[in-house]
Structure formats: structure tokens, C-alpha cells
């Protein structure tokens, strides 16, 4: 396609003259669904060969933006030109030339690897002479050569993603648009995926990709940070980091240090416990915060820090929650002895012993299928154990499940809220379902909303709320009947760092009131918020203790949570081999 004259023309000579024609150019681009804006005011330029990362949590508007650039979704406001063509008037031209990879799995699962590739090539007019050669090259690069005849649905998630990338690389596109390419992909496949992309870029292709992993943005030429449909910041990774420079500190706790000191400081936006006596702190102003009994020194910001610091400019600060937790007593609220659950021959949970104290936060970590969810269901009284027994607040989970269930709260991964009801209607429903007396209803709901960090209840339907708000509402619904034990099943997936921080402060505050909390999570860094960690593998609880205990058991004093986790799994595998 011949390059058209740019919209700005060549009348004004400038240093930009030599720059190549922009591949993508948007100005004040926005999109509304049913009158509600989901994306507004996006102005960006992508030049030949550049890599642009769109970074933001779930619901930030990343997919909407990419679909508009791929000319398969019409903008409501603003303008977008791709290869010089307008996405509304010349949509067909753009659709034929871009390589768009949608979120999730977009290939035909009944077709084999080779058939999917052949289909993609045929509908995109790839010359038949060059197809075989390109196919062999791509399959070799993706490590899929051996699986050419396997059906797509039988491949692992990582392989399916790599294949999807191959199907859009099979034609000579100049622009790749990738929607969360590494979502749900294991670390190794993720690396291979990026290797394929690097090669494509070496051939001069331009790439736009969306991600909720902040660290993936670092390799980009440009990064656009999105939050709730608005641009937070845009620039090179170095530029963005510079904006947060001086607002990120490392804190070494001395004797007598309390987290309360951090909470009390108006300047501190959020903080994370990195190691036993070490914190990472983000501040509002570029001034070193003064914290008693602690040694504060500036440190280099990561993209996650940038996001947190930039977030404060366009969101309500909200009231901080104080979470000073009393020392744990020996009051046991949940106890399991030899709990085992079989499904036929399969052992989902294998002889788990654990005791959880009142007000304690327990993190359950483990790969998919390790038995975390089954264990939680047994402790909730939803599933009787095949062997062993467990008690919750003194009640047997198998025989007195009714008593057990009225004393627990549960927040699932997908927040089981009614999306076509308002927050208040949801709260009333859950309050009634848990048998909250009518006379106490209003008071309980107000208190649950406050404890979940919802200052004012929105009148909008839950379906239109941000994921961070929905998460807090789900928490409010789970505590409206004042449970003694709260189960959280991956409560923070897809939520931005600052909201995640705030969520954990709320959890700590609940624990401070004496609620025991059992949480399963994929974000290993969140393990630092827990009092003790339980590592699960193949249904067994292979290790349990504080992070420090687990580290010293492996002899890895300063190891990251991920390494501790992998260390125990490796040790367990080695033991299995021996026996």
C-alpha cells in the first residue's frame, strides 16, 4: 500500500520531517457503551518498528482501545488512523492488513495446528508458494514443529498462545495488535512468546500490546498507563520512572518500628512489606518521609511504583484504615486433623493437619490443582472430608455444616455478586440470605460497607462498577453477617497495585478485630501480608509457617517468596524420587 501524505502535511519543516510515517495515530479517541464512557481522551502515535505497551488493571479499557485500532470497533469520539487510513471509513483496508490477536483463545480448537495455520494463511491471501516455508519457520521458532497434527484444543495454554501469534505472523503484516498475550501463560512460554515477538520486531514490525503485568512494560519503547478508561501517563519507560523518582523509598525497620507510623504519615500512599524488616514505600511528594524508628532511603521506581504514584492524581484518596493488630492468642478458630478428600481414585486433599488462630491471616499457595479450593470447601462445610475431621469455631464441618456456614464469609475469585442490582440491593440480599434480623439490617449493612472501605454506596448497577469497587463490595457482602472466619479465593487477580494495597489494609483491619482469614493467591508477593503460609502440592500441605521460618528451613535468608515456593516444590519432588 502506498504511504499517504500524513494529516499534518509537509508544509512545516521540522526535525520530525525525517521521522517515518506514523503507523498508528489517534487523537482524543474515546468509546462509550450504552452512554457510559469506558475509554476517553487517548492521543498516541506509534511509529514504524516501535513497541507500545498499554498497561492497566482489568476494566481499564485496554481491549476497547486495541479493538478500535484494529478497526473492528467504532470509536464514539475522536479519530484514529492506521497506515494512514481512517478506522471508520476505511475499516476493511485496515482489517486486511493488521495482525490482531484477541484476548483468550481465538483459534479453532477442533482444527490441528497445521490446519489453523493454513486457514489463517488462506483467508489472508498468503501466497501459496511461500506458505510452506513460512509455516516451517514459524513452527520451529515457536517450538510447535512436533505438534503440527495435534488439535489446537489439546495444546497447553502457552502453546495455544504461541500458535495464535504464529497465525497472525504468517502474513506480512506491519502492525501486530496483541491483547494480553501472556495472560494465563506459564513463565517459560511467556519468554518464548516474547522471543518470537523480538524476531518479528527485528524485521521492522510495529507492535501494540496490552498487559496487566507491569513488568512487561519495561521492554517497550513507549508505555501508556491506563486506569478506569483514562490515560494516567504516557512516555518511554525511563521517562515514566523519572516521574516517580524521589517518590519511592526503601525502609529498613529498626527496633520499636510499627506499621502504624507508616499509616499515620499523610505523605505515604502505600507500602509493601518486602522482607521481615524491610518495606517499600510510595509517597505523594518527592520528599523523604520521616518515620520513627526506621531508616528511609530513596530507591529506583519500578513500573508498578509509577502506576501507584500516578494513580493518586485522579482518584479519591479514601479514608485510610487503621490496622494495628493485637498479638495473636492461642484461641484456635479452625482446626483440621488428617483431612483427606478423594474423588474416585483421585486424592484431591491428602491428610492435611492445620490449626488457625483467631485473627490470623493464612495464605494458601500452590499451583493449579494443588487442592487449595477443595480444602477451602471442606473447611467451609460445603464438602464432607473422606477421612479425618475438621472443626470451625468448635463445630464439626461435616456434621454441623449449618452452624459452620453461618459463621463464615466467602469471597470467590469471580466475586459472586448480582451484576444487575445496585450495591445496596446486593448487600440487602446477602444480609437476608445469612439471616441478619430485620431490626439490625441497616446498621449491619452500614458497618459492613464501612469495614470494606465503601464510603458511599453507588446507585449504579454492579455490572458497571470498576473491578476494585466490585472487589470491596464482594468483601462487604461476605462480612455483613459478622463471620468468624473469612475465606478469600484469589481475591485480587486483575486489580491495580494501589487498590490491591488498600484491599490488604482492609483485610488486616478485619484480622485485627479477631476474624481469621484464609486466602489463596497467585500473587506471590502478597504472601508477605500473611502471618503464616501454607504451601500445597498434589493435595498435601508440604510446608507451613511464617515466611522467615520457611526461608530458614531452606537456608535461603533473603530469598523472594517465589524462590521459597519453588525451593519447597523441588525438595518435595526430590523426596518423591528417592522413595
Amino acid at each position: 500500500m502506498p504511504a499517504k501524505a500524513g494529516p499534518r502535511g509537509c508544509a512545516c519543516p521540522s526535525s520530525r520531517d525525517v521521522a517515518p510515517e506514523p503507523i498508528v495515530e489517534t487523537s482524543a479517541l474515546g468509546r462509550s457503551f450504552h452512554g457510559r464512557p469506558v475509554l476517553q481522551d487517548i492521543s498516541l502515535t506509534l511509529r514504524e518498528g516501535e513497541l507500545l505497551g498499554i498497561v492497566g488493571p482489568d476494566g481499564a479499557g485496554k481491549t476497547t482501545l486495541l479493538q478500535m485500532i484494529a478497526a473492528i470497533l467504532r470509536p464514539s469520539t475522536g479519530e484514529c488512523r492506521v497506515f494512514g487510513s481512517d478506522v471508520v471509513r476505511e475499516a476493511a483496508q485496515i482489517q486486511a492488513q493488521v495482525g490482531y490477536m484477541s484476548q483468550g483463545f481465538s483459534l479453532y480448537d477442533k482444527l490441528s495446528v497445521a490446519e489453523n495455520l493454513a486457514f489463517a494463511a488462506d483467508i489472508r491471501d498468503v501466497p501459496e508458494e511461500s506458505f510452506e516455508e513460512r509455516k516451517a519457520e514459524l513452527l520451529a521458532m515457536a517450538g510447535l514443529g512436533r505438534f503440527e497434527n495435534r488439535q489446537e484444543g489439546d495444546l497447553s495454554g502457552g502453546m495455544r498462545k504461541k500458535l495464535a501469534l504464529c497465525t497472525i505472523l504468517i502474513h506480512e503484516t506491519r502492525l501486530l495488535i496483541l491483547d494480553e498475550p501472556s495472560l494465563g501463560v506459564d513463565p517459560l512460554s511467556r519468554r518464548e512468546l516474547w522471543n518470537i515477538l523480538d524476531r518479528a520486531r527485528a524485521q521492522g514490525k510495529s507492535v501494540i500490546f496490552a498487559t496487566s503485568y507491569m513488568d512487561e512494560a519495561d521492554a517497550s519503547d513507549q508505555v501508556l498507563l491506563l486506569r478506569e478508561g483514562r490515560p494516567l501517563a504516557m512516555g518511554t519507560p525511563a521517562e515514566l520512572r523519572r516521574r516517580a523518582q524521589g517518590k519511592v523509598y526503601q525502609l529498613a525497620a529498626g527496633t520499636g518500628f510499627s506499621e502504624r507510623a507508616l499509616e499515620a504519615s499523610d505523605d505515604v500512599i502505600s507500602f509493601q512489606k518486602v522482607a521481615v524488616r524491610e518495606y517499600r514505600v510510595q509517597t505523594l511528594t518527592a520528599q523523604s518521609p520521616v518515620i520513627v524508628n526506621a531508616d528511609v532511603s530513596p530507591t529506583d521506581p519500578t513500573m508498578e511504583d509509577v502506576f501507584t504514584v500516578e494513580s493518586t492524581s485522579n482518584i479519591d484518596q479514601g479514608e485510610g484504615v487503621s490496622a494495628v493488630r493485637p498479638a495473636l492468642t492461642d484461641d484456635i478458630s479452625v482446626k483440621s486433623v488428617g483431612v483427606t478428600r478423594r474423588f474416585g481414585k483421585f486424592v484431591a486433599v491428602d491428610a492435611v493437619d492445620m490449626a488457625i488462630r483467631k485473627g490470623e491471616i493464612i495464605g494458601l499457595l500452590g499451583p493449579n490443582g494443588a487442592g487449595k479450593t477443595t480444602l477451602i470447601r471442606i473447611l467451609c462445610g460445603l464438602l464432607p472430608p473422606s477421612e479425618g475431621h475438621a472443626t470451625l469455631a468448635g463445630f464439626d464441618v461435616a456434621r454441623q455444616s449449618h452452624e459452620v456456614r453461618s459463621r463464615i464469609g466467602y469471597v470467590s475469585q469471580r466475586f459472586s455478586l448480582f451484576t444487575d442490582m445496585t450495591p445496596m440491593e446486593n448487600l440487602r440480599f446477602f444480609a437476608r440470605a445469612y439471616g441478619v434480623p430485620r431490626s439490625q439490617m441497616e446498621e449491619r449493612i452500614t458497618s459492613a460497607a464501612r469495614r470494606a472501605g465503601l464510603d458511599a454506596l453507588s446507585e449504579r448497577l454492579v455490572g458497571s462498577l470498576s473491578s476494585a469497587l466490585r472487589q470491596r463490595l464482594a468483601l462487604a457482602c461476605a462480612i455483613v453477617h459478622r463471620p468468624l472466619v473469612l475465606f478469600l479465593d484469589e481475591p485480587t487477580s486483575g486489580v491495580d497495585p494501589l487498590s490491591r494495597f488498600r484491599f490488604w489494609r482492609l483485610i488486616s483491619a478485619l484480622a485485627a478485630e479477631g476474624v481469621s482469614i484464609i486466602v489463596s493467591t497467585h500473587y506471590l508477593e502478597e504472601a508477605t501480608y500473611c502471618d503464616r503460609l501454607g504451601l500445597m502440592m498434589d493435595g498435601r500441605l508440604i510446608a507451613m509457617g511464617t515466611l522467615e521460618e520457611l526461608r530458614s528451613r531452606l537456608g535461603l535468608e533473603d530469598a523472594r517468596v517465589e524462590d521459597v515456593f519453588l525451593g519447597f516444590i523441588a525438595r518435595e519432588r526430590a523426596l518423591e524420587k528417592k522413595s
Partner: protein
Amino acid sequence: MKLRRMRAFVRKEMLEIARDPITIGVALLMPMVMLFLFGYALTFDVENAPLVIVDHDKSVASRALSHQFLNSGYFRLDSAPESEAVAEHAVMTGKVRAFLYIPRDFGRRLASGRSAPVEFVVDGTYASTAAVVSAYGRAILYAFPSGRLDMPIQPEVRVWYNPQLRSRDFIVPGLFAVILMAFPPLLTALAVAREKELGTIMQIYASPLTKVEFIIGKLLPYGLIAFVEMAVVFAAAFLWFDIPMHGSMLLLILLGVVYVLCTVAVGLLVSIIVRTQLAAMLVALIMTLMPSFLFSGLIYPVATMPPFFQAYSAKIPTMYFVNISRGIVMRGAGLDELWYEVVVLIAYTLIVLAAGILLFRKRIG
């Protein structure tokens, strides 16, 4: 329009269908279930209807009349009470379909050549059954040989095309139209909606594939499945139900192909409008199966409907194929007679396809 792109699309559809045994199973089994269900159950014939006879005459003539009823094969004797009240009660409680009352001097009046009234009461709860039962009763009474009533006209009614008035011979050719309107569109509607639901349609949107290529690429493979469904249904009808064929099998198959392309196009249009498989299924059922039953002439002739419903029936392709199918199978009709129906079906198909191409958007929302 590029042949290569379309061929690739058709091939992809065929591979997907071939590797989904459940879909094939449903596609072939459901039409058979419907054919057998309605082929056996949807019959207006009345056999062995329970009858009460109150014979107060007890003469040779009255006994002969009773025998005429009971030997006809249409009635069986339920009871022969002495009192009319008991008989009436049996009709009222639904125990019997009809009641024959023969008064005391029936035999004498007949013998003397006077008119001899008898009473024949039919349970009218089920109007269509009642009509059949009363017609049978009347036929037997008129044909009663001894001392026939003085009738000015002696009608000699002959039924053409289906002399035994077997309802199956009439229902099954009609069912062809309804079955092929019910299942092929359903399958087709699900096919596109599934691509939307799973997100595989995204790679179609972001590709040079045109709307026409997409629609024809879906129409051909699902048309082929519909053709196989048609073949299976025809085979069952002519080999299992032994429906007599009075016309050209080739013509029936040829016009059947025109019809299934039309019904598949309707399914395609549905799937272009809706977004989910659930909606596709509901809309397809409401648009195809439900009106096909009532407004195609399968059960009630369109010609006797109020004008509004006649006009409505004319909007549904099923009616035209009911006419075509019954015409060929029962009357041996040819194209010279059925050309109007054929023209309408072809025009219908083209209009529906055009609407599909017009409404299909290669983008979200």
C-alpha cells in the same frame, strides 16, 4: 470475492463439523425423532372408538344396525345398558366417544316403510375426533340397507389422492417441510453464534475475508448437512412408513435442495442478528418451528384460515414446501403446477441472504 478464501472457510467448517460427533448425531437424530413421533402420533384416524348402544327395540333390524356399527372397525362396544341415563352418563364422564339410541318401534317403522328415527350422540370435546366419529356414524346409518330412508339425492362420494384417507400419507409429506425448517436453521444459527461467543470471530473480523465470503462459506457446509438430513428423512418416509409416491423422486429432491438452502439462510440471518448461542436457539425456534406447525398447512389448511393468518402463512417458506411436497408425493404434480411455489422459495432465499449480507457487520456491536 476470492475463491481461495471461501474454499478455506468451507474447508474449515467441514473439518469442525466432522470432528464434532455430537453435532452430527443431533443433526441426524433429531429429525428422525420428530418424524417418528409425528408420523405415529399425529393421526386423525379413529379406530375402535368406544360406543354405548341402548337398544329398546331388540328386533332383527335393530340388531342388524348394531352389528353394522360394531363390524365397521371404527367402533367397539363398551356396554349395552337398558337406560338412556346410564348411556348419557358414560358420554358425560368421557368413558365413551359416542352413544347410539334405538327407540322401541324402530323395526316396525322400518318394515312399514315409515321414517325410523335413531339418535346418535357424539362427544364433541375433541372437535376433530368428534367430526370424524359423527361422519363415520352417519355413513353407516345412510348405508343401512334394510328399508333405506327416502333420500332425494344419493351422493356417491369418492376421495381422490388418498382414497383410504390415511392421515399418515398426508402428514408425513407435510412433515418434510416442517422438519427441514426446524433443524437445519437451528444448527446454522448456533454455528455463527458459537464463533461470536468463543471469540474466534475476532480473527475473521481482522482479516481480508469479506462478508459475502463469510456468509457463503457458512451457507454451503450447513446446506450440505441439511441435504443429508433431508435424504435421511426421505428414506425413512418412503422405506419405513411406506408412503406411496405418486410423482418424481428427482423433482422432490431437487426442490428439496432449493428449500433447505432457504431454511439454512434463515438460520444464518438469525445468527447474524443475535450474539449468544442461547438467543440463537430461542429466536430460531420462534421464527421457524413454531409458525411452521400452525401456519404451513401441515395440520390446518391455509385456505380455510382467516385472511390475516393466510397472509401471515404466506410469509413463511414452510407453507410453500408443504404444497410442493404434498403435490409431488400425493398427486404426482410437476413443475408446470408448482412453479409459483418454486419461484417464491428462490426469491425468499435471495432476499434472506441479501438481508444477512446487509446486516452482517465485520466489527463488534
